[in-house]
């Protein structure tokens, strides 16, 4: 398969960046887990889902798809400070945590 065929195949893949997810349970939620100072990563009962960055994405675009508002990009940035050094630089294939 040539590069052009590969490009055509990749381009034909549907874009699922606007997909929204959620969930609930009849099981009790676990008690909150205290976090160490400075640790902003989601733990305990904080529900998240993973979003895989695709070409052309920005935090604003992802926030718009996930929350309906591009202004919410900082929520995603804060939840992924260990992965994102510069909020203007994210890469295709990166798996970002999206807080509910």
């Amino acid at each position: 398969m040539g590069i052009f065929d590969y490009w055509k195949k990749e381009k034909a893949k549907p874009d699922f960046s606007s997909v929204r997810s959620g969930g609930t349970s009849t099981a009790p939620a676990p008690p909150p887990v205290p976090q160490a100072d400075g640790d902003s990563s989601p733990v305990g009962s904080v529900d998240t889902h993973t979003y895989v960055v695709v070409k052309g994405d920005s935090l604003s675009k992802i926030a718009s798809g996930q929350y309906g508002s591009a202004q919410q990009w900082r929520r995603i940035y804060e939840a992924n400070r260990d992965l994102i050094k510069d909020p203007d630089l994210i890469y295709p294939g990166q798996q970002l945590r999206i807080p509910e």
Partner: protein
Amino acid sequence: MLSTVVVIVSALALLGCSGSAARPPATQSALTVADIDVGRSVATDKTIADKTDTFRPGDTFYVAVKTVGSVGSAPTATLVAHWSYGDGQRINEATQTIAPSGPAVTEFHVSRPNGPGDGWPTGDYKVEIVLNGVSAGTEKFKVQ
């Protein structure tokens, strides 16, 4: 006649023994996934109200995961739903942390807001449920 009865009773006893010996001991406390269903909506008890394996482009996909047992000594359990399309293109991955002490139902759902050119593309989909890092089952469905 008596010897025939003794032989039959012995054989039945042996069968009974071998049958029960093959079963693992019941572990009431271990948290396991008992059932996975997909459908278009959930009831108030989180079970699937409208089971189907064929969806329409504008539907929301729901998966209900029935678990039995409790987390035991572990403080929590983690359930993950991996949604994928076609030959494995990842759609979404959602996580819920639960602390059940008995039978429970946990639902996940995904939707793709409708708009021009939006909605789910037709084709094959699947959702894999992972409990504490171990795959607990996969449900396949399609959109047409």
